[in-house]
């Protein structure tokens, strides 16, 4: 059994036209398959979900933002190992939610894990993370030699 997250925005967009529309449909297919919310694993009985992420590259740092509504920050673990940043954790289902009779269940629960390979080395001892308004923000400062250096070229 698998539950695929209902993507409400899909119904709002106009019917795809031409090649670009087809591209969009293909993208949607991949999104549904690879990051489509909750998926119940038959063997383990655990469910997995994929929180949405923004990654920004500034001159001096990377800023990773992850949407984690309804999670305790104690249940999130961030690791950096040879330039691979991994954010993993578990969202536990609230107790009272399990007892009612459901009309609609779209919110995701269970374990999540996402890893990102950084193209430049960061200062592993200076990584900062905070959780505010349901969004986790991780700031990873680049090491000095990784910052872009401007080289002046003289025209002879």
């Amino acid at each position, binding site marked *: 059994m698998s539950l695929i997250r209902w993507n409400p925005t899909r119904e709002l967009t106009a019917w795809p036209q031409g090649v670009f529309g087809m591209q969009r449909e293909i993208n949607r297919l991949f999104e549904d398959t690879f990051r489509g919310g909750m998926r119940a694993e038959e063997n383990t009985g655990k469910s997995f979900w994929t929180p949405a992420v*923004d990654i920004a590259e500034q001159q001096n740092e990377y800023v990773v933002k992850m949407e984690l509504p309804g999670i305790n920050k104690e249940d999130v673990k961030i690791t950096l190992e040879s330039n691979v940043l991994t954010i993993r954790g578990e969202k536990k289902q609230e107790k009272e939610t399990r007892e009612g009779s459901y009309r609609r269940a779209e919110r995701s629960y269970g374990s999540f894990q996402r890893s*990102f390979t950084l193209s430049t080395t960061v200062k592993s001892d200076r990584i900062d993370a905070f959780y505010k308004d349901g969004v986790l923000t991780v700031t990873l400062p680049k090491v000095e030699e990784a910052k872009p250096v401007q080289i002046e070229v003289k025209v002879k």
Partner: protein
Amino acid sequence: MENIIIPVADVYETAEEFVLKLDLPGVEKEKINITIQPGRISIKGEVDTTHRDEARLLLREIGLKTYYREFNLGEGIQHQAARAEFEQSVLTVILPKTDAAKAKIISIR
């Protein structure tokens, strides 16, 4: 350009009330607007985008957005007694049932 996103929601029913739970990550409590009228509830939440720099994004799944969602409500809800809580970016709206709508337990003689 403003991007309207329908937030994911759980809706469930207990003997006494209906409960709506919506994930609104990135929204401050003050930026949530709930309107209830007979037969309908609408919920809007605005994400603070003051410090965003879209141009520098390597990966963009969150993006800029405003959450908006409406639900049709059946009869048997006490609109005046509705209440809402917001904790860890999860909005919980509790809609108590009228006495007439509550489940009755019928004992067997």
